[in-house]
């Protein structure tokens, strides 16, 4: 009896690990209040899975000049967030996130993975006033804050 339960549990666990990575439309941000607070104040707290560890390190080493904004942090918080991002960085799904010369990409929206997933979005759509930029995930993915990028939660503003 006990053995049967154990087998079931192992099977369930196995199944979970097998199916989870296949769900490209679910990108939950691991719970980390400091990351949410500091990296979710000017924009969505992006899913760490969408850049590799080299890219995140580069982002975290240039916060005083962050895409035209000053996002500087005290060293203690900066180091804690850099560590969190390094541990939760992507790789499997997105592959290496570097440009042709091997330089780490800083933008999720510049990665091959992002561009493949958004092939069907016309270049003019990104510039609509209610969208502004590909970085504005939540403009179209209405439940992005909950890590939901599924097709049924997409509304593209006119």
């Amino acid at each position: 009896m006990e053995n049967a339960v154990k087998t079931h549990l192992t099977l369930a666990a196995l199944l979970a690990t097998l199916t989870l990575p296949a769900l490209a439309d679910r990108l939950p941000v691991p719970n980390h209040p400091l990351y949410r607070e500091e990296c979710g104040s000017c924009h969505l707290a992006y899913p760490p899975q969408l850049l590799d560890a080299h890219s995140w390190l580069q982002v975290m080493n240039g916060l005083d000049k962050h895409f035209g904004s000053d996002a500087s942090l005290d060293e203690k918080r900066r180091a804690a967030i850099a560590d969190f991002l390094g541990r939760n960085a992507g790789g499997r799904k997105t592959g290496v996130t570097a440009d042709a010369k091997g330089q780490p990409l800083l933008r999720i929206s510049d990665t091959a993975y992002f561009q493949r997933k958004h092939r069907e979005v016309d270049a003019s759509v990104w510039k609509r006033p209610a969208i502004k930029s590909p970085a504005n995930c939540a403009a179209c993915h209405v439940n992005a804050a909950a890590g939901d990028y599924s097709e049924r939660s997409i509304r593209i503003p006119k």
Partner: protein
Amino acid sequence: MRTSLLIAAIFIAASGAGRAETPRDFLTRFEKEAGTAASAERGARFFTARHGGEWSCASCHTERPTQAGRHAKTDKPISALAPSANGERFTDAAKVDKWFRRNCNDTMNRACTAQEKADVIAWLLSFK
């Protein structure tokens, strides 16, 4: 009971950042640093004017700081800056210093003076 109160007291004392401050405390602090009284009128002008850069403070916080704003670049909603509309504003020194540092740099390419900060707070406090 006594022990838990004591523990709570130690906890509050130890977590320096959790020390509650009020918007008036910040006004007093910056007025003292500036060595002059603040002016809400000057604060209004400062907040709504551009200072050589692309953005004014109002670009993200609007000219009516009792309303929510939107980040000029990312479009993310920003809750109201006036303390009368948002009780969390100007209650945490680390947060206040961090955002003055960043936002002054982004709008003017320099730090704000103590007088500019005092003026802005005086203006924000004038909204009931």
